[in-house]
């Protein structure tokens, strides 16, 4: 490959970790991804993956308080869409265990599918977490377009 793939466009969004913001976050990111002219299916995949990542921040990163969630996204010349969801919350003790389908630390109604859905609906998912300091999820998907 010759040189670095240039970004076409970028965006940043900072929201409070309130559950009412879940739909705002996924719909905003999906509207931005729309610039790559994705199919309805591709948009649904992105919306779902973002919803999972943001919900993880609300439920796990900031369980007892309202914190900030930092979302950045970019489109690039190769037609790849990348979104990054970052928090400064609790962090993940054991990433491998957290990513196991159906595993959850929550007693309530969580299915334990967040990471499984992100991995299944996006092409690439990278998790970086420092226990006690926060988590950063970077997900990308090649948009074939209409």
């Amino acid at each position, binding site marked *: 490959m010759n040189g670095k793939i240039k970004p076409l466009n970028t965006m940043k969004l900072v929201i409070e970790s309130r559950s009412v913001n879940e739909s705002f976050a996924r719909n905003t990111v999906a509207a931005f991804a729309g610039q790559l002219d994705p199919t309805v299916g591709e948009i*649904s995949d992105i919306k779902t993956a973002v919803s999972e990542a943001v919900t993880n921040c609300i439920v796990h990163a900031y369980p007892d308080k309202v914190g900030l969630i930092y979302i950045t996204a970019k489109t690039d010349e190769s037609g790849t869409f990348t979104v990054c969801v970052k928090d400064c919350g609790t962090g993940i003790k054991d990433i491998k265990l957290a990513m196991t389908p159906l595993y959850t630390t929550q007693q309530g*109604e969580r299915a334990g599918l967040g990471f499984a859905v992100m991995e299944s609906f996006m092409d690439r998912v990278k998790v970086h977490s420092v226990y006690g300091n926060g988590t950063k999820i970077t997900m990308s998907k090649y948009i074939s377009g209409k």
Partner: protein
Amino acid sequence: MSATIRYFENSILVNIDGELDHHSASLIRAGIDEAVIRCRPQKLTLDFSGVGFMDSSGVGLVMGRYKLMKAVSGEVEITGLSPLALKMMRLAGIERIVSIKENVSV
């Protein structure tokens, strides 16, 4: 987000409408549970045909209602799933605990 609850002789049918996520699932859960506890139906049908968007909270909603229905010796049926919602339900292996129907039957 809304959940319309309809009562039949031995069953309850819930039509879920709107975008189903962690936030909206928490808004409809209590109403469904209250109906189940009060009527103790043999079958609870959750109709997802009005759901435009769903993340894994939809799976959590089904799992939670399965546990409740099991406690009252009843079963759960789900219907009206979009291809994406079906993919997510299958990721969780939900078909092992509830029946997935193409059309509503009460």
